C-alpha cells in the first residue's frame, strides 16, 4: 500500500490525477460503458469492487462470477458504468459463461474493455487478451496481481508489452489499490480518445484456409458493409460456431458498428 509504484507504461505523460467517486448501483445516467474481461480468478471482481464501492462477492476460485455484475464510478466529471464479466479463457467456444462475456464484448459495444491479466501467468492470460484485441479497438490491459508477481520474483516489462499490444498496459494490484490511479488515467484517456490505441491484430493464417476465409469475409462485407471485425466473424463461421451463425442468420450481427453511436440491448 505504501510501497512505491512500479514503473508504469505511461509514467511521463500523466498530467493531473482525478478523483475517483464510487457510485455503487447509481446507474441512472452514465457517459461511458466499461467492460471488465479476463481469465477466471485474475481479480476482476476485486477491481470491480474497488472502483464501484460495491461488495460483489469475491472468492479465490475460478468461475465465481456467473452472470455479469454492473456498478458505477465517476472520474473527472464523467460517469462510467462498469460491467464485470464472467472469467473466460477464450472467446471461441461457447459455454454459458463464455457466451455472456462474448455477447457483451461484441454486442454490448462497451466504450472500453479493461482486460484484467494475471501478471504471474501472463502467457496464458495473453491468449484471451489477443482474442479481445481482435474484436475491439479500445482496450486497456490491467496487469493485476503485481504484488504476487513480485513475491514470485517475476518482472514484467509493461512498457514493452504496451508497445507490442498497441494498447496501454497498467501494472496494478486491485487488492491493495496499487496502480488503480494509473488505470483510471488510462481508462479516461482511451475512452475520450486522447490516448490513441493501435491494437495488435493477430493474423490467423492457417495454411489452406486463406481462400475460404477470404470468400466468407467478402460475402460478409457485401451484406454488412460496416462490420468492424469481419475476419473474426468469418473465422467463427468456418469453425462452425452456432451462436455466431445464428447472429449472422437473423441479421443482428449487422448491429455491430465501428462507431458505437447506436447501442443495442444486451441479452442478459
Amino acid at each position: 500500500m505504501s510501497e512505491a509504484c512500479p514503473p508504469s507504461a505511461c509514467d511521463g505523460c500523466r498530467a493531473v490525477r482525478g478523483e475517483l467517486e464510487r457510485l455503487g448501483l447509481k446507474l441512472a445516467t452514465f457517459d461511458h460503458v466499461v467492460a471488465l474481461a479476463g481469465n477466471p480468478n485474475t481479480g476482476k471482481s476485486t477491481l470491480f469492487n474497488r472502483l464501484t464501492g460495491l461488495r460483489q462477492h469475491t472468492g479465490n476460485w475460478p468461475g465465481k462470477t456467473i452472470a455479469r455484475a454492473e456498478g458505477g464510478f465517476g472520474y473527472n466529471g464523467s460517469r462510467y458504468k462498469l460491467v464485470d464479466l464472467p472469467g473466460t479463457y477464450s472467446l471461441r467456444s461457447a459455454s454459458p459463461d463464455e457466451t455472456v462475456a462474448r455477447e457483451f464484448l461484441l454486442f454490448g459495444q462497451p466504450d472500453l474493455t479493461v482486460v484484467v491479466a494475471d501478471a504471474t501467468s501472463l502467457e496464458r492470460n495473453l491468449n484471451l487478451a489477443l482474442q479481445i484485441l481482435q474484436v475491439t479497438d479500445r482496450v486497456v490491459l490491467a496487469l493485476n496481481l503485481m504484488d504476487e508477481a513480485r513475491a514470485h520474483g517475476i518482472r514484467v516489462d509493461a512498457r514493452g508489452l504496451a508497445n507490442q499490444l498497441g494498447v496501454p498496459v497498467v501494472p496494478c494490484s486491485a487488492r491493495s489499490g496499487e496502480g488503480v490511479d494509473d488505470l483510471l488515467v488510462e481508462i479516461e484517456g482511451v475512452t475520450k480518445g486522447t490516448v490513441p490505441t493501435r491494437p495488435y491484430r493477430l493474423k490467423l493464417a492457417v495454411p489452406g484456409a486463406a481462400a475460404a476465409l477470404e470468400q466468407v469475409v467478402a460475402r460478409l462485407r457485401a451484406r454488412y458493409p460496416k462490420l468492424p471485425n469481419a475476419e473474426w466473424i468469418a473465422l467463427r463461421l468456418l469453425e462452425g460456431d452456432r451462436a455466431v451463425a445464428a447472429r449472422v442468420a437473423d441479421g443482428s450481427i449487422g448491429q455491430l458498428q465501428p462507431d458505437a453511436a447506436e447501442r443495442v440491448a444486451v441479452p442478459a
Partner: protein
Amino acid sequence: MSDSPAPTDDLVDFAEGLRWNLPRNFHDQLTEAIYTESTCIAERTVAREGESRRLDWQHRIDRLVTNPLTGFPIMGLVFAAVLWITIIGANYPSGWLAWLLTEEAYGWLRPLAFGALPNWLAGLLVDGMFLATGWVISVMLPPMAIFFPAFTILEDLGFLPRVAFNLDRVFHRAGAHGKQALTTAMGYGCNAAGVIAARVIDSPRERLIAILTNNFSLCNGRWPTQILVASVFLGSLVPAHLAGFVATGAVFAVALLGFGLTLLTAWALSRTVLRGEASTFSLELPPYRPPNLWRTLYTSLIDRTLFVLWRAVVFALPAGAVIWLVANVMVGDQTIAHWVVNGLDPLGLFLGLNGVILLAYIIAIPANEIVIPSILMLTVLMTGQGENWAEAGVMFETGDEGVKQILAAGGWTVLTGICLMLFSLCHNPCSTTLYTIYKETGSAKWTALSALMPTVIGFVLCAAVATIWRLTVG
C-alpha cells in the same frame, strides 16, 4: 444460444459448405497460432529472478493437500475443525440470546400485550410471532456468525479449489461433473445458492445431477438443528468434557452421509434417467492467497449471515402465527394440532420420529430454520408441560438441559434424536430452493423429483434405523 436450431441462411450455409474443404486440424491450428503468439510476447516481456521461495512452499503444500492419500484426511480434519469451533463457540452466545429474547424481552412484552390487546391478538403476536422469531435468532445467529466467516476464509485462502480438485475424481466416477464439488460446497451454505451455482456446469445432464443432489449438502437452516440435537441427545451420553467431540463427530457423520448420498444418487441418476458420459474440464489451482481478514469478516457477516438471518426472521413471523393458530383453534373437541399430530403419530413412530416432528416439517416447508422452534412449541402443547409457565402455543428456551426435559416428556429417546438428524438431512428442500430449482430447470417434473427423491430416501433410512434399533437396542 447453443441450443438454437441450425439457422438457414445462404451465407451461413456457404461457410458451412467451405468447412468440408478446410484442413482437418483447422481448429487446433487456430488455437496454436494464438498460443504461439502469446508465448512469443510473454518471452519478450517477462523475466524471472531466481527461485521463488513462496512458489516452492505452495507446491509443497499442494503436494500434501491434493495427494489422494493425505488429501482426504486433511479435508476431513479441516472440515471437522470448522464444525467443532462452530459447535463450541455457538453454545454460549446462543444461551445469552435466548435468555435476552425469550425470557427477558418476552417476559416484559407478554403482560404488556395481554393488558392492551384482545387475548387472541396478544397471543398471536407475542406467543406466536415474537417467540418464534426470538427463537430463530437465538438458534441461528451464533452458528452462522461463526460458520460463514470460517468457510469464507477457507475459500479466500484457496482451499476450496483444492477440495474440488480432490473430489473431481470421485464425482467423475459417480458420473457427475467435477465442478459439482463447488456447487456441493455452496450448498453447505444455502441449497438455493448451490442450485444457482450449478450454472457453472455446461452439460445439461450433469447440471441437472448437480441440482437434484444439492439438497444432500446440509444448509445453514439445518446445521443448527443438527448441532442442537447432537448436543442434547448424543453429547449428553458421555461425560461433559467429551460432549463437544461426540456432538461434532455425530454432525460430521451426518454431513459425511449426506456427501455419500450425493455421490450415490448422482451415480444412480447417471445410470438411469440421466444417462451419459461424464465430461472433463480443466480446473486451475489458484495460488494460496492471504485472506483479507477484516473484509472477509465484514462481507460474510453483513452479506451472508444477516441476509440469511433476515430470511429466517421473515419466515419465522408467519410460521409463529401458524403454529399459534393450529395450537389454539379448536375443531370439534380438539385443536387442529392435536388432530394432525395424532393422525401422523403412527407413521412418525414407525420412522423413529413422531407426529409432532412430521407436523413441524410441514409447517417448516418455507424454511428449515423454524423446524426446532416448531417442534418444541408443539411438544409443549401436546404434553401440557407449559401450563404453569405460559399458555398453550408458547415457545420457550431454557438452554440445552431444558430442551432435553421438554422433549423427554414428549417421549423422545436417543433414537428420536438420531432419526431427526437423518430426516433433517433427507427430506424435501425448502420452498425457496424448490422455486429456484423450478426457475433453473424450467421443469415441474425435475422439481418434483428433487422433492420426492430425498424424502423417500429419508423415510427408508429412518424406518430402517428405527427397525434395527428396536430389534437390537430395544
